[in-house]
């Protein structure tokens, strides 16, 4: 990427998660010029590491009525405005023997008070529709939960924003702020080896869990705690509907049908460090054991992946457990930090990301003197062809529709075709980006299936060489980077069949191809000492 060293814009958004991308679109729709800088990639943080649940609000009805009502209202808006990212699966709340009777008894009235419709379902009837439910279930309520694809949401938000003039800088990390009085003059952003200065009238910090670090750089400290949540991805889909545990929010109480797989979680652990977020064996075990009480098949299920995200929770003093901290969002204008053109929007939930963006945009526009109203609640999000590939189960159909001589499958597990990869690659490329295999993985199902990249990475790289996109020794590096990224999610679920799969992956890539030794080959040059060790 080759950016001029100084870039000017009206608004700089820091962070390309669900909030940042929604904000970019919101501002772009109001005619405000903006740049979004993202240190990694779209949804690389908690935005891409959650259930993908569009909350009906029922989960919060008992404890946090405001949040519940907000979820209900926002959920309804998203179902209309971003229908393509949502599967209206419906959801069950299920209590099993031993769960709190009072909570069960009060559940529907709590929901009713928040305006959330529930319907009690006979346990037998529910089990007929969802055979995976435990025979120990004692109460089932139906709620209007749905699944949402956060990647598609953010990618399409960003794609729309870009079509309206917004700019995106991926892999660009904010490294400093140039302050002048109550103003931030410029933001220093490192993009690869280069550093650029972005001069913006307004800066919005939407860095999610990293919002505190960014604000600190700007000299605007605020308190925040981090709650790590781990989730598991199953090998096959377990149920049609979202299945929630009917009890106060706790570990492993949500099972999401995500297209062709199911996502189970989550845990909540207070953490201090943000990077290097690995799901641990203990967290995984906790989820499996706890969720199996609701869905017994999970005890023997093959899991293909685990991932951990960090919930940014704006601190309330003296609270240790992340789960009891409000899931509400926080919008800071930082005026008490002596800044008039800086704002932070963080916390919140996937379901309310649009609302958060709206509030932040309102603030920014007020400061900029822009009076145009927010359009995101009334204007449907346009479909972008290159953003369709994150939806599980979609690519097989697309391929079966298109497949011919020129369109072969690169990923067999999830059936992603060459044309999908081309669309993603070309879209990134046309924005002046240098797409990597990992970028393609984020925007498609490549590497997300059972083989976790062992086969598809090789085919995709071969495909990109053939297209002339990859040169020299880049392919092997890309494969290994990709494996490294995938490994993070695999490591904690490696037992049973998935351990065999991982062993096969290592047998092929290390045992057969010796990829871990890349760069070492010259040391085994034929002119080395024939009698013994190859001398370096």
């Amino acid at each position, binding site marked *: 990427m080759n950016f001029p060293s100084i870039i000017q814009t009206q608004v700089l958004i820091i962070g390309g998660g669900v909030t940042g991308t929604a904000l970019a679109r919101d501002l772009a729709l109001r005619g405000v010029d903006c740049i979004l800088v993202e240190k990694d990639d779209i949804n690389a943080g908690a935005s891409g590491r959650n259930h993908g649940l569009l909350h009906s609000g029922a989960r919060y009805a008992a404890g946090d009525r405001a949040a519940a009502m907000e979820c209900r209202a926002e959920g309804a808006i998203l179902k209309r405005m971003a229908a393509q990212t949502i599967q209206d699966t419906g959801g069950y709340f299920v209590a099993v023997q031993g769960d709190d009777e009072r909570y069960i008894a009060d559940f529907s009235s709590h929901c009713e008070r928040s305006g959330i419709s529930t319907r009690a379902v006979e346990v037998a009837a529910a089990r007929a529709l969802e055979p995976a439910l435990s025979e120990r279930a004692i109460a089932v309520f139906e709620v209007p939960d749905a699944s949402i694809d956060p990647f598609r949401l953010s990618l399409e938000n960003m794609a729309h924003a870009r079509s309206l003039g917004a700019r995106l800088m991926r892999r660009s990390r904010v490294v400093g702020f140039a302050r002048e009085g109550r103003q931030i003059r410029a933001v220093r952003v490192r993009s690869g080896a280069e550093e650029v200065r972005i001069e913006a009238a307004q800066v919005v910090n939407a860095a999610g869990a990293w919002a505190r670090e960014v604000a600190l750089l700007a000299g605007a400290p605020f308190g925040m705690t981090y709650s790590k949540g781990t989730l598991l991805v199953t090998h096959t889909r377990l149920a049609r509907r979202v299945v929630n545990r009917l009890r106060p929010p706790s570990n492993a109480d949500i099972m999401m049908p995500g297209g062709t797989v199911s996502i189970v979680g989550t845990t909540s652990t207070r953490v201090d460090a943000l990077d*290097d977020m690995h799901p641990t064996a203990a967290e995984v075990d906790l989820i499996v054991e706890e969720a199996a009480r609701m869905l017994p098949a999970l005890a023997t299920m093959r899991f293909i992946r685990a991932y951990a995200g960090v919930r940014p929770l704006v601190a309330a003093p003296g609270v240790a457990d992340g789960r009891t901290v409000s899931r509400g969002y926080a919008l800071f204008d930082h005026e008490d930090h002596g800044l008039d053109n800086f704002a932070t929007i963080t916390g919140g939930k996937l379901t309310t990301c649009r609302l958060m963006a709206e509030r932040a945009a309102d603030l920014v526009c007020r400061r900029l003197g822009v009076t145009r109203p927010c359009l995101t609640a009334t204007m449907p999000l346009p479909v972008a062809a290159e953003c369709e590939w994150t939806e599980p189960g979609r690519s097989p159909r697309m391929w079966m529709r298109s497949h011919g001589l020129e*369109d072969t499958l690169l990923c067999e597990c999830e059936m992603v075709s060459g044309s999908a990869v081309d669309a993603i690659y070309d879209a990134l490329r046309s924005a002046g980006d240098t797409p990597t295999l990992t970028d393609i993985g984020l925007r498609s199902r490549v590497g997300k299936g059972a083989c976790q990249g062992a086969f598809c990475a090789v085919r995709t790289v071969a495909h990109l060489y053939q297209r002339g996109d990859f040169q020299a020794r880049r392919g*092997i590096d890309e494969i290994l980077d990709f494996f490294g990224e995938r490994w993070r999610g695999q490591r904690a679920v490696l*037992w049973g069949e998935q351990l065999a799969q991982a062993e*096969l992956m290592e*047998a*092929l890539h290390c*045992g057969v191809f010796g990829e871990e030794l890349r760069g070492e080959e010259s040391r085994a040059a034929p002119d080395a000492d024939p*009698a013994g060790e*190859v001398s370096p």
Partner: protein
Amino acid sequence: MTGARRDSCDVAVIGAGMAGMATALFAAERGLSCIQVGNPGGILFASGLLDLFGVHPVAERRLWRSPYAAIAALAREQSDHPLARIDASSIRTAFEIFVAALGAAGLRYAPLGDRNRSVLTSIGTIKTTFGVPLSMVAGVDALEARPPCLLVDFRGLREFNARQIAESLGHRWPDLRHRRIEFPGTEAAPELYAAHLARALESRQTRERTIALVKPLLGDALAVGFPAVLGLARASEVHAAFEAGLEMPVFEIPTMPTSVPGLRLLGALETAVSARGVRRRHQASVRALAFDREAGTAALDVEGVPGVERVVARAVVLATGRFTGRGLTADRGQVRESILGIPVLQPASREAWHQRDFLDPSGHAVNRAGLAIDDAWRPLDADGKPVWPRLFAVGSILAHQDWMRSKCGSGLAISTAWAAMEQVARQLRGTGAG
């Protein structure tokens, strides 16, 4: 009429990966009657290259030119490694017999010698290995001399891209060129599979059409590389025909599994053991294994369909492999040996099984988990005693080795099979047979 099916033998081999096949082969060579139970398994994932020992110590990623010198170093530094227990002459003998049996079954290897060789792979890496099929030898030579060389690939063969290999090696081998051709008669196929091409090339007509397509592309090339698709059952003949037709050395480059060289190896080994009278039980598993200590026999309940076959054997060799071969199974808590629950040496907890980095130079601890054995290749129980006097274990199920990182998969399988079979024969002689 169907009764409970029964059979008996001297040696029951459980497992049909490389170690299992080698064990059955060596048992038959020693004149022992043999029943072998197991799926095709690991051989399908083989590259056709026979590694012996390439990297030591793993954490230092140190490559060795002489596998025997490396094993000697291993014996000094890590004496519990299975290969450290076997002397070089046994390894040589085992490999010679193994390769000769493959040759007799139609899969010919270059003379083995004492040195590791470097082979080009489909992914653009260079692999250090020991035994090289004849069809790949010209590639070893070309990689050394780096003459002008043409790599050919076929449209539709998704895992093999000549351009990728040429690009990856371009800095070291500037005269490596690449061309893509349409495999004759595949105009309607969006994707091709290596084994299908290999079989198609066994027809003279397809072979000649392919050669005719490649010939005009040769330019100044002095050697030609193809993906490993030059024949399956008739590989030698097809390879020879290509060399004759193109009038220069032709070599195959191993591809992603399931690869043709893997299928060749599987075919040759099945042929070799079948020809030696080994009774194979395919797609079957051992449900139970019990020992009659008085009679000195083991009883295997082989899960068949329907029902169970009782196999009575005087000695049993476990060659069941690791997780992919299902010799070891792991639940969330621990790693177990699948049939008898023999204690498995393993890290204390699952958190310690794998490194946080996939490519961590020291490798993953769980890959060194496995069975502990005594000097006679007998797995040990919790008290450190042999589980049964004539129960042996070979191959990758053994502890203290990481074949994937040491590049010793075949070496481990073949050598331990040989060494264990010596012990089997000795033990059975002791009981008046063999």
